[in-house]
């Protein structure tokens, strides 16, 4: 060990199988952004079929092969594959790895002043298991019958009798879950154990708190889905009937090879036991990013920092006992539905608290409209719309009409698309200078923001009207129904919005790659921020900090009266802050 210190590690050890949390964070980031882009492309294909059902796709219709799109016209099975894989890729391969794997991995240890994650090798393994999971998912597009086509929720019995792609999906999911579990153990231990001196729990940046709660959610909610995945694999490969009742007649053929005795609802329980906390996995780190950016750009402390933390803890806790509100329509009686509707209403309160705290934080601030701030600000109303539209879905009686309609799609996309993904953009614009030592170009950033903001609303706003009109989700062609045909024009509008939204990402992609080499070079702390990551050099070296910092104050000490600057970094002593330099 002694002689190794000065030895420069080989390229592979440094960039491929690296144990440095920053390299792993960047690996996660690049991979997850690629998946995010892929998931977006799948959606743009689907939008063609939705807007112009049964028409030949122009220009690119012929490249998908006769099995998926004969003559350039999408087949329902391919449409269903796209739908299922869009959901899976976006959630499990795109957003969660970005929020937790990339931002969490890169920023969190810096924010707590740690030299690395607690278990660096585990961290590397977590990335590579995720990578394998991603490869498995992508490969599944090329197996006979195409990728999984039973929806991202994979409800059996449909998924039990589906094509081979479903088996690949399950293997991929088992990999992704394992990766998340490894990651979450690492995160919790790191946050609890490796904080520097003086950094008490209530001096942690809100982002770190969000990561901590998220990790607990991943740790405790993911294993049931892993178990469910194993059970479904058993159903598919060993012929068991965990999710299959007796007397199934598929396509007119009595299924005699299965024993029966299982229940399709079992999967839904185990799935939603994960998937509801998963919603908070998608949103909490995003809230963390937004809180960081807002505090920094309002130049004042977050309002209700502690209330936000308590709300987050409460959210995390409650998210485990609301899952059956996804199952109101599965034949649930009054008592249980009342229980879950009540917990659902209760869980809306801490969300309101957090949102209120963030918007009150703007009051009496000095708001700098930087690019990350614009994304963070846009996040607030978008998240508000997403959250509010959850209300009618959480009331069982209103859910009767809205369940499984476009209203649901609009609701959760408002939470995760203009919500979480805007927060991700905010994070990218905010921490890019830390990672690369260079700023992203802000003109391109503004263009990216305004176009994205407008078009993303054109995509998702019409869905509420479609849902109100009663149009079911996951329909290959909604015009077969009178109520669907009546609102087809909204679908067309939504589709055009989606394609324009795709175009709006071009400035970002250009910016992302060009600025790496041509961006303006910056100092350690270009945003004049207070948290510890801005103490480390940009980009931080292996081991992060030249000297181990000591923390003297809370995370958001901006505009302190009597201080020489409008920000007092956590690691600077009080005397140094007030002395005029």
């Amino acid at each position, binding site marked *: 060990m002694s002689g190794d210190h000065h030895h420069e590690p080989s390229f592979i050890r440094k960039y491929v199988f690296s144990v440095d949390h920053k390299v792993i964070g960047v690996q996660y980031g690049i991979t997850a952004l690629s998946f995010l882009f892929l998931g977006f492309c799948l959606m743009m294909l689907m939008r063609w079929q939705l807007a112009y059902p049964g028409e030949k796709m122009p220009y690119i219709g012929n490249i998908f092969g006769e099995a998926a799109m004969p003559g350039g016209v999408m087949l329902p099975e391919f449409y269903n594959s796209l739908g299922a894989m869009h959901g899976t890729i976006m959630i499990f391969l795109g957003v969660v790895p970005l929020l937790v794997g990339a931002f969490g991995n890169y920023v969190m240890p810096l924010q707590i002043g740690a030299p690395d994650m607690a278990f660096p090798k585990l961290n590397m393994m977590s990335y590579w298991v995720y990578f394998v999971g991603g490869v498995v998912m992508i490969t599944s597009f090329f197996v006979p019958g195409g990728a999984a086509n039973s929806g991202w929720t994979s409800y059996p019995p449909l998924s039990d009798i589906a094509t081979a792609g479903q088996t690949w999906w399950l293997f991929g999911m088992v990999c992704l879950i394992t990766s998340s579990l490894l990651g979450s153990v690492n995160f919790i231990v790191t946050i609890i154990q490796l904080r520097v001196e003086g950094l008490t729990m209530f001096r942690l940046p809100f982002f770190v708190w969000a990561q901590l709660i998220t990790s607990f959610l991943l740790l405790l*909610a993911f294993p049931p889905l892993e178990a469910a995945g194993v059970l479904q694999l058993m159903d598919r490969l060993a012929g068991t009937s*965990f999710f299959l009742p*007796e007397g199934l007649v598929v396509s007119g053929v009595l299924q005699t090879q299965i024993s029966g005795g299982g229940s399709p609802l079992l999967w839904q329980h185990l799935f939603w036991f994960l998937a509801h906390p998963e919603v908070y996995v998608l949103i909490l780190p995003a809230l963390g990013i937004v809180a960081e950016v807002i505090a920094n750009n309002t130049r004042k402390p977050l309002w209700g920092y502690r209330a936000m933390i308590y709300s987050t803890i409460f959210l995390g806790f409650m998210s485990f006992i609301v899952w059956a509100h996804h199952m109101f329509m599965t034949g649930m009686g009054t008592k249980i539905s009342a229980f879950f509707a009540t917990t659902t209403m209760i869980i809306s309160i801490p969300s309101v608290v957090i949102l209120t705290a963030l918007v009150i934080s703007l009051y009496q601030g000095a708001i700098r409209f930087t690019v990350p701030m614009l994304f963070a600000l846009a996040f607030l109303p978008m998240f508000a719309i997403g959250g509010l539209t959850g209300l009618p879905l959480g009331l069982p009686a209103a859910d009767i009409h809205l369940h499984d309609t476009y209203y649901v799609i609009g609701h959760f996309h408002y939470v995760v698309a203009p919500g979480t993904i805007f927060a991700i953009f905010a994070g990218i614009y905010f921490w890019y200078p830390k990672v690369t030592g260079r700023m992203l170009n802000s003109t391109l950033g503004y263009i990216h923001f305004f176009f994205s903001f407008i078009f993303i609303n054109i995509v998702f706003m019409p869905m509420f009207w479609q849902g109100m009109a009663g149009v079911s989700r996951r329909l290959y062609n909604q015009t077969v129904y009178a109520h669907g045909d009546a609102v087809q024009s909204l679908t067309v509008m939504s589709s055009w919005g989606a394609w324009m939204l795709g175009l709006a990402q071009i400035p970002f992609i250009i910016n992302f790659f060009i600025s790496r080499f041509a961006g303006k070079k910056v100092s350690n702390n270009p945003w004049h921020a207070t948290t510890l990551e801005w103490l480390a050099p940009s980009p931080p070296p292996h081991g992060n900090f030249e000297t181990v910092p000591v923390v003297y104050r809370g995370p958001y000490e901006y505009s302190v009266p009597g201080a020489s600057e409008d920000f007092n970094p956590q690691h600077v002593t009080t005397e140094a802050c007030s002395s005029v330099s």
Partner: protein
Amino acid sequence: MSAEVLPYTIKPHPVTGLYNGKFGVWLFLASEVMLFGALFSTYIFLRIGAPETGPAAWPSGEETHLSWKIGGLNTLILILSSVTMVLAWVQFKMDNFGKGRLYLAITAILAIAFVAIKFKFEYAHKFHMDIVPSTSVFFAIYYTMTGLHALHIIGGVVVICYFIGPGAKLWDQNREYYTNRIECTGLYWHFVDLVWIFLFPILYLL
């Protein structure tokens, strides 16, 4: 390298009283509880939902063809291995490397015996009788739960053998680090034992 740089890898954190590995293992066990929890939930859900009569009815004790003798023997073996595991840790703690290693070896042998009995006298016997996972929901659960448990045992054996063999070098470099790792392995091992304590009655006796 990183192990030396990172704080609290070996010594416990002054405030939390834990070294990283131990906390990590406990968190990992928490996720394992939820993993097996989902399977227990499956067991209960399907058992409650099973019809009273008919082919999908829950099998009674005799119909399961599970021998409480073999199950009970395996229970004892696993409990014994838990004891030897914890004794191994005591020996390392008291600086008796040789004895500690012996106890580790006994643990590994007992674990292998458990798996061998499981495969030879239970799985092989059942496959011979044409009882496979698809036979009924009960056997689906039986094979899945015990199979997953057996995988955990095999994983544990691999880790224990590693610490008897190549991993033992660490003892010479840093005794406390090595003992810590044995403690973590032990925690995992006792958890596997604990799962079996529940599996045995629900599958063999009820």
